[in-house]
């Protein structure tokens, strides 16, 4: 695992000779500033608060600008920015990281999610995701997840990154991101199903199974 203080801006090798300031700023604007909407979305899912998210976006862009000489031209600016953004955020929230650093067995987390579905089938809440607009409930439930799980779920499930890309952003091994992702999904499902039960939501048993195929990644 990489040290929490290891930042992307310091980790990247310096590959190009210094460009003149105007040229550098033009490429920064084209390649990095253009990713502002992506960073804003990612920051919002980390902080769950618009004002804090905007502060985080600004700090991320400032750090990116100061460290732009370390950015490898042609590499993935979005991933670089996500990494900086995540580092800034976590440095501000250091204490919450500790509780999520244990990587439980990923397959057990998967089984846990399936057992949650079995329970939902039993009480008729298993077509919840088809029947309700879950946007607000998902946002609230995501906000209640510990940071490390939320980061994994947001990167893979909302931003459409692969396990490998998410691991690079989170600064942890792929296996760790995978366990955090699976745990985060299970916790989210539990929260949503529990929310549905509390709201008295139940459907007649026996929904028609639908085909489930691997999904394509989001193109951002």
């Amino acid at each position: 695992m990489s040290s929490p203080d290891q930042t992307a801006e310091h980790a990247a090798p310096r590959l190009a000779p210094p460009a003149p300031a105007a040229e550098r700023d033009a490429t920064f604007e084209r390649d990095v500033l253009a990713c502002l909407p992506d960073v804003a979305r990612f920051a919002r899912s980390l902080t769950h608060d618009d004002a804090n998210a905007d502060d985080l976006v600004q700090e991320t862009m400032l750090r990116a600008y100061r460290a732009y000489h370390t950015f490898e031209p042609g590499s993935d600016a979005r991933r670089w920015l996500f990494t900086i953004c995540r580092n800034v955020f976590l440095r501000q929230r250091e204490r919450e990281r500790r509780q999520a650093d244990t990587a439980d067995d990923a397959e057990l987390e998967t089984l846990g999610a399936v057992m949650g579905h079995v329970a939902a089938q039993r009480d008729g809440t298993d077509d919840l995701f088809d029947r309700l607009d879950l946007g607000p409930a998902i946002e609230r439930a995501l906000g209640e997840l510990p940071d490390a799980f939320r980061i994994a779920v947001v990167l893979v499930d909302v931003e459409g990154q692969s396990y490998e890309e998410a691991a690079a952003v989170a600064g942890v091994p792929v296996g760790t991101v995978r366990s955090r992702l699976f745990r985060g999904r299970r916790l989210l499902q539990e929260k949503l199903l529990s929310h549905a039960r509390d709201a008295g939501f139940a459907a007649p048993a026996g929904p028609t199974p639908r085909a489930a195929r691997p999904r394509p990644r989001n193109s951002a």
Partner: protein
Amino acid sequence: MTQHPPFTAAGSPPPAPIDCDTTVRRLWDYLDGELDERRMAEVDAHLAACRHCPRHFAFARVFLDALAAARREHQRPAVLRERVVAALRAEGFTGAGTP
């Protein structure tokens, strides 16, 4: 003429049968497309034959679709951009700052 078994690419052996427990342990990796070809084919073959597992996979698929749909854009992107560009200018940034 070689007869190809179902679910596999030409020339590869048929997928080994796997049970429900093994199949559901692979659920997330399968839906994320993170399994290798052989394990993927094993899950496909099991899902085609099993009465129970496809429901779990369908439920998980709908859950993931709901998560992906929760992606929310910033409410006032132009305002945020102006603010960021102003902060960058204070650091010496000379770009135009307009999208």
